[in-house]
């Protein structure tokens, strides 16, 4: 198995999920009046977690640092806003496939171009595409200019006349988003460990070698780029439903940078890390915002500190916990060798190798 995590990872993730599921029980007691507001915050964190995981497929798994990932996030919001009828709700049954299709097609076109570049040029071209769309929607009248577009009604999820999940209800929407995030996690978890994921991992390690073996790496990268774009689109649609509008800020480079920070903060290439990273980032944001108007200064310092102390992000903290106090001594301790962290996270890889003239 490519990445077999220690058992504590699924245990911790499951515990956090259970904690979230039972929020309606502990939320009002712990938070009181603000619990409804915090529920919306949690919903947003789940959405951003989904978004961060989609980026992790590029950044962590293949090693492609995109600074334009919000493009797909925002585009999905605009798709939802433009495709929704003005005076009644759309059905999610066709809205979700539509958003995924639009995301897939745009990711295919953009990916086909940006994947021809590497390294810093990849970062710059993804940024350029993101900004192109940003200025387009900021200036065009059909997208509502810098005000954006309102989404008066959230799409409905019905079978016949029966409402399956009432997405207008914040709590039900919260559970719906949680389900989508969970599905995305399971899908990506499976994908990364599949044959396809092994190829992506190989490309990350050494793209030249993969080509020498016979892999047309461009096609694999493009496929991953499209998958990543579609998932970012799903996140963007959920976000637009949550906000009730589509706005240029949802596809600007600022958000692209933020989601990249969530991935790095959480631990690149670990999938559960970026999910946690989104929560950590938003919680910090929330806490500092209440503390001072200069919250961004605190935010920046904290992130620098975390990256310095935890180079593998929050995931590293779980995968390779720091040992406090005396080392455990005992029969089990004597024979149990601590597995090297580099086998589990994506650090310590052989970089792309240059062919030396011999």
């Amino acid at each position, binding site marked *: 198995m*490519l990445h077999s995590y220690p058992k504590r990872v699924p245990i911790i993730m499951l515990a956090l999920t259970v904690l979230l599921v039972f929020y309606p029980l502990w939320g009002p007691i712990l938070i009181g009046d603000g619990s409804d507001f915090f529920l919306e915050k949690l919903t947003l964190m789940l959405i951003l977690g989904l978004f961060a995981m989609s980026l992790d497929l590029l950044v962590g798994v293949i090693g492609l640092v995109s600074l334009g990932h919000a493009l797909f996030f925002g585009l999905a919001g605009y798709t939802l806003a433009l495709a929704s009828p003005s005076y009644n709700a759309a059905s999610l049954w066709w809205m979700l496939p539509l958003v995924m299709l639009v995301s897939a097609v745009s990711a295919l076109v953009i990916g086909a171009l940006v994947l021809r570049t590497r390294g810093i040029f990849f970062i710059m071209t993804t940024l350029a595409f993101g900004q192109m769309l940003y200025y387009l929607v900021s200036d065009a009248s059909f997208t509502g200019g810098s005000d954006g577009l309102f989404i008066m009604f959230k799409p409905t999820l019905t079978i016949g006349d029966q409402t399956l999940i009432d997405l207008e209800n914040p709590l039900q929407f919260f559970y719906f988003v949680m389900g989508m995030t969970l599905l995305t996690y399971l899908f990506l978890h499976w994908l990364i460990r599949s044959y396809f994921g092994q190829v992506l991992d190989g490309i990350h390690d050494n793209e030249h070698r993969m*080509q*020498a073996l016979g892999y047309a790496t461009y096609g694999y990268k493009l496929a991953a780029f499209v998958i990543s774009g579609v998932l970012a689109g799903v996140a963007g649609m959920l976000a637009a439903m949550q906000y009730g509008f589509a706005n240029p800020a949802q596809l600007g480079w600022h958000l692209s940078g933020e989601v990249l920070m969530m991935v790095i903060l959480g631990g690149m290439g670990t999938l559960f890390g970026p999910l946690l990273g989104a929560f950590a980032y938003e919680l910090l944001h929330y806490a500092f915002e209440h503390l001072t108007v200069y919250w961004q200064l605190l935010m920046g310092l904290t992130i620098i500190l975390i990256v310095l102390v935890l180079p593998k992000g929050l995931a590293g903290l779980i995968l390779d916990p720091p040992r406090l106090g005396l080392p455990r001594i005992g029969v089990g301790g004597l024979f149990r060798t601590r597995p090297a962290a580099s086998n589990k996270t994506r650090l310590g890889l052989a970089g792309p190798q240059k062919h030396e003239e011999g």
Partner: protein
Amino acid sequence: MSDTPLLSTRGLTCRFGGLTAVDRVDFDVRPGQVHAILGPNGAGKSTLINLLSGELRPSEGEIHYRQHPIHGLPAHRVARLGIGRSHQKTNIFPRLSCLENCRLAARIHLGGVIASWRSRATARQVDERAEQALATCLLTHRASTPASAMSYGEQRQLQIAMVLATAPTLMLLDEPLAGMGREETSRVTELLRALRGDYTLVLIEHDMDSVFALAERITVMVDGRILETGTTAAIRGSEKVRDVYLGRHQQEQA
């Protein structure tokens, strides 16, 4: 022995800016032979291999494989035609086990990822070929060991196993014995000797004893050009080669 070469180059040239690394090389590899390329550092041996494998594009000249032009094809297309290569630097996937490294190599030559997903039979074929490659390279006992946990010599063996797993016709091996101890060298030399006949091998190697033990033909390169090509005995006896290369080599050792 068939006279039509499996692989041949005509006027093959590769320039890096002002430097001509490979200069008008005419090079023929006959099927089933072990063909060694010798030459001092900077002679252009690795560049030649990189041109043959499609990792570099020639500035001029042609490469024909089974009478078909392959110059200008990208590396992955060349690999799919049955030209497998190993690199001078150890180039394995450290987090994968030995068997998985070989599976990765075999899979792309058996229909790729999707074929293995769709058909259990194909997936089994991939396994079989990977296991066979490991067995040939004497690594069966290491099948489930992560590649990063093996000795340097074993990693070099694995690299050869990965090339074998692609079921190549022609193997391009760039210094397969580089950096190995004496025992490892003789083990891998034996391994390569066992491949003789089943595969056509082009190999760059500095270990003279191994080259003379393995190669049937030798090409000597100097400054990007071919100095001489001939049978092992002819090269051994060549005055020109002795002056330019072997002489220097022996002086260094003395």
